[in-house]
């Protein structure tokens, strides 16, 4: 929690700037869209953080989003499967992708960067080839299934704040459930504790009898599963997508959110609250850039700069605390 204070501060500062200078920022519809996008990207960011905690990385998230997302309308419309067949198949397929990554990384000892970079190319290519590079959509049907992402709930209170028309998007529900489950997993279970230990010092974990390989594989499975689940929600949300660009760069938003949220790329550190706020900050930033009118071309540059400042500050804090630790250790000797 203490680690998340920095990113919460950044979030509040940007929120303040957007409220003051952004036209139409504090409107119900804008806040509702912002919440929806935060929820969707949070799911991917949680997946990314699960892998980052082990000291690994997953660059294939965007392509998994694309392949899983595109497959849903493709099977529903072209092959006329029922949604209750499609959803389990897509989720199982996503989990298999993660299993494939995990096995290559632990058993064959390939580097996570390399394995998932190949995944990024592989799944994108498969998605485009499979669909003949044609846009896939629900063609106005399947409203009942798409409601998983599209339903909106009215909550009291916002009208009194002067914000008209804000309704909570349904995507918030899986975000909250996943965040709570993942948060409890790392703080309250043996496996969660062991994954943190593995990320911190894999060798020491192995000497302590921790099944490091199994837990690493599990982490990659969870990440790809969340990617596939997120891809499904994204396609339900937007209705149709192009296999060539759907999900592009999503892995970078996810990794950036995790890092901003306090997950060190060295592994061993996790803060669910931080990851959620990190994802929210990135979406808020995109939204603000659009509304303040500086031109959306600069979006990537701003995100890059914020990320650099964030990780730079984190590194400085780490060095300072290491120096303090050294002094304490010297004191302990004397």
């Amino acid at each position, binding site marked *: 929690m203490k680690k998340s204070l920095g990113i919460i501060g950044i979030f509040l500062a940007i929120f303040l700037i957007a409220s003051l200078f952004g036209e139409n920022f504090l409107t119900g519809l804008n806040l509702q869209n912002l919440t929806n996008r935060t929820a969707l990207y949070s799911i991917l960011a949680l997946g990314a953080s699960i892998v980052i905690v082990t000291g690994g990385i997953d660059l294939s998230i965007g392509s998994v989003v694309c392949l899983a997302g595109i497959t849903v309308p493709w099977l529903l419309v072209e092959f006329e499967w029922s949604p209750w067949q499609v959803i389990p198949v897509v989720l199982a397929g996503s989990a298999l992708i993660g299993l494939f990554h995990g096995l290559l990384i632990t058993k064959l000892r390939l580097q996570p960067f390399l394995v998932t970079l190949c995944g990024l190319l592989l799944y994108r290519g498969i998605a485009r080839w499979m669909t003949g590079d044609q846009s896939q959509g629900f063609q106005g049907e399947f409203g009942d299934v798409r409601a998983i992402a599209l339903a909106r709930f009215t909550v009291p209170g916002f009208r009194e704040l002067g914000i008209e028309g804000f309704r909570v998007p349904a995507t918030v529900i899986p975000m909250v459930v996943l965040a709570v489950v993942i948060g409890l997993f790392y703080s*309250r*279970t*043996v*496996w969660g*504790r*062991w994954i*943190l*230990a593995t990320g*911190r*010092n894999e*060798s*020491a*974990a*192995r*000497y*302590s*009898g*921790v*099944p490091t390989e199994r837990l690493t594989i599990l982490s990659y499975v969870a990440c790809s599963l969340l990617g596939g689940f997120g891809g499904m929600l994204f396609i339900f949300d937007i209705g149709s997508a192009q296999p060539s660009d759907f999900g592009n760069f999503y892995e970078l938003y996810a990794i950036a959110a995790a890092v901003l949220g306090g997950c060190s790329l060295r592994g*061993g550190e996790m803060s669910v609250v931080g990851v959620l706020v990190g994802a929210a900050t990135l979406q808020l930033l995109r939204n603000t850039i659009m509304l303040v009118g500086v031109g959306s071309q600069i979006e990537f540059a701003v995100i890059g700069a914020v990320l650099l400042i964030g990780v730079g500050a984190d590194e400085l804090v780490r060095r300072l605390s*290491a120096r303090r*630790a050294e002094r*304490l*250790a010297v004191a*302990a*000797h004397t």
Partner: protein
Amino acid sequence: MSDLQNPTPVMLRVRGIGRRYAGLVALAGIDLDIRGGEVLGIVGENGAGKSTLLKILSGVVTPSDGTMECATDTHELRMVQLDGVRSASRAGIALVHQELNLAENLDLAGAIFLGREPSRYGLLDLPRMRREAAKWLARVGLALDPSTLCASLGLAQRQQVEIAKALSCEAKVLILDEPTSSLSAPETKRLLAIMDDLRSEGVAVVFVSHHLEEVMQIADRVMVLRDGRSTGELMRGSFDRAMIERLMVGRDLKSAPKRLIAAESQARLKVDRLVSVHRRRQAVSFEVRAGEIVGLAGLVGAGRTETLEAIAGIRHHQGEVTLDGVALTGGSVERVRRGVAIVPEDRARNGLFLEDAVSMNMSLAWIDRRSNSRLLDSGAEASLIARMTSRMQLRPADPSRRVQTLSGGNQQKTVIGRWLAVDPALLLLDEPTRGVDVGARAEIHAEIRRLSESGSAVLFASSELEEVLLLADRILVMHEGRIAGELNSHEATEVAIMHLATGGGHE
């Protein structure tokens, strides 16, 4: 070989050389003349100061006290201040490290001239490089084409290349740090022959070795170090093995009060023809009984760590290991579940989660035994940590402290506490008190004894003879990957252990 008292010129003279690290004396008051055409052997226990002395001689470490003089081309001695390997190499001193570090992707000529490649018009002068390299390779008896890749060479050949490299720098003093530690017997013989050649060409050869046989075979003079001081300098003809061993060990240590292990106490750990990753691939067999503490003694590289790690399932092995009559199989995960625990030699790398709190480090193994479900029981965990903190006498007794901030002794107590918390059936310790102060060492030893009294089997490896004698009920001495002998604690002496550890054998 020396016929007269001073037949050969002094190449390097040191007087009163010493080195302190953070107030601890690693080396003190060393006087030494290193002569051309002479082989000087330096021997001593682990930690006697041999490495420090070599590092000073080769400019890697600057001495805290004392002076060094180097011979000029006209054999005059001139005071030098060595600050770095480069200045040592300018003074004609070259060190061949124990760990060879040749760049694998270079060919022999490239490796020999690395950093001082001959060039013409800014381009590498390859023909000249190869020509000269061939000359130096011939001098060390390596009949290989200079364009051979280093990666294709065996250990012994790599060493010869390193020596050739040293000679090509016009080295007058050649220092070899445990040159034979990773060589087979015929390779060792060849290396000794090369050293003999160099001696006859007037080079001063200084070498450190754990193998007294070699030292006695080749050295003209032997210097014995103990606890950072020279305990004797013996000329060829005036030394024998027993004499060197006595000088190496020196002190007469009182061993701990001996404990009686009931003869009928059953064997808990049985190791049958275990072959570990040790380069000699020798089979070892032994047993550890319930309530018994067995010490593995031996010099660095004798195969103690490999044996412990094989038993713990960290490394693959051949042969059978059984615990309480049931074979141990699989990796460390399965074996830890069966009650095997290992405290590794390098605690920062393999033992601790330095950035995490003491509490997390201590409960890591326990949380698995304790929780029936996979959920953590925070209340029970907190009370365990409180119990272990006081049992291990952690100072400060604050389990929320990051392990990084603790002293070496408290860090070691944290690792050992992790295992004592789960009452292991077999506790393996590799260097249980390395870098630990005297007080903490006694506390750690007491806890190990207490565990064994409750019926666990304990097997530990230590490079410090003193610790082996203090802690072990029975001592297995390893040499070159095999068990060279077994000593009961009441008959063991430092000299007896050292005799076996240096390949003396019972023969």
